[in-house]
């Protein structure tokens, strides 16, 4: 079973991602509510994939991607963005994120993106 770490400052969004991916066979091994916590939990849990919001307190999603990639250049990170954040998404991809999904989430798109990202990393 593939393991996932979810990072978003809104528990609403973390719960929504969990409800989408767990029935599809992914195991959520941890949650983080800010950009510092996600790096700490990545280091601790070594998940197969990180799903992370771009806008977070303490440390932005882009800075957190850079920190995670510095820890593990093979890390698979998918950014969660919103419409109108194209520039930030490009920055995140340049920082090492593998892909992105756009809010509001469409369950099929989330699952397809996760599967593709994990497949690409194997």
């Amino acid at each position, binding site marked *: 079973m593939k393991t996932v770490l979810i990072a978003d400052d*809104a528990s*609403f*969004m973390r719960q929504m991602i969990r409800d*989408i991916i767990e029935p*599809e066979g992914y195991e959520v091994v941890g949650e983080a509510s800010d950009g510092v916590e996600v790096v700490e939990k990545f280091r601790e849990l070594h998940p197969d994939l990180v799903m992370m919001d771009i806008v977070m307190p303490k440390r932005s999603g882009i800075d957190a991607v850079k920190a995670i990639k510095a820890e593990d250049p093979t890390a698979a990170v998918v950014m969660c963005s919103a419409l109108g954040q194209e520039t930030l998404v490009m920055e995140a991809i340049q920082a090492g994120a593998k892909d992105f999904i756009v*809010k*509001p989430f469409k*369950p099929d798109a989330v*699952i397809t993106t996760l599967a593709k990202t994990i497949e690409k990393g194997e």
Partner: protein
Amino acid sequence: MASGFAGAGTTKLDLEKYTALFLEEATEHLAEMSTALLALEKEPGDGEAIDVVFRMAHSIKGMAASLEMDSVTELSHRLEDLMDGYRAAGRVDATEGIALLFRSLDGLERMVEGVRENGVAPALDDGLVALLGAAAAVPENEGEPPKKI
């Protein structure tokens, strides 16, 4: 209640659960936003407070969009855009800007209360949205606050 997220894909989600989560988190976010606006009223260059208002608007937008609460999504999106400009400028407009931010907070609070009481988001205040759009459209000016509206 809007049909929301359920049915958008293969997974069915519990809209009642998510509406309750929205009400809880949006109420907390609006309280944080209120505290940050009071700080900005005293110090328009308070970068941390500007960031808090931006993030709270962003978060409310994401939740509301997931539940297809279009009016809440639109108002929070406009507020987020304005705050993004203020983030770039490093300060908010100390007069009309602050007043507009408090009016936006009031508008969001009324919308959230409408969802709590009636299960649906009230209609958008078009006048407020126009003011936010006009304020956000003013080009940034090398660190100067956006022009007054």
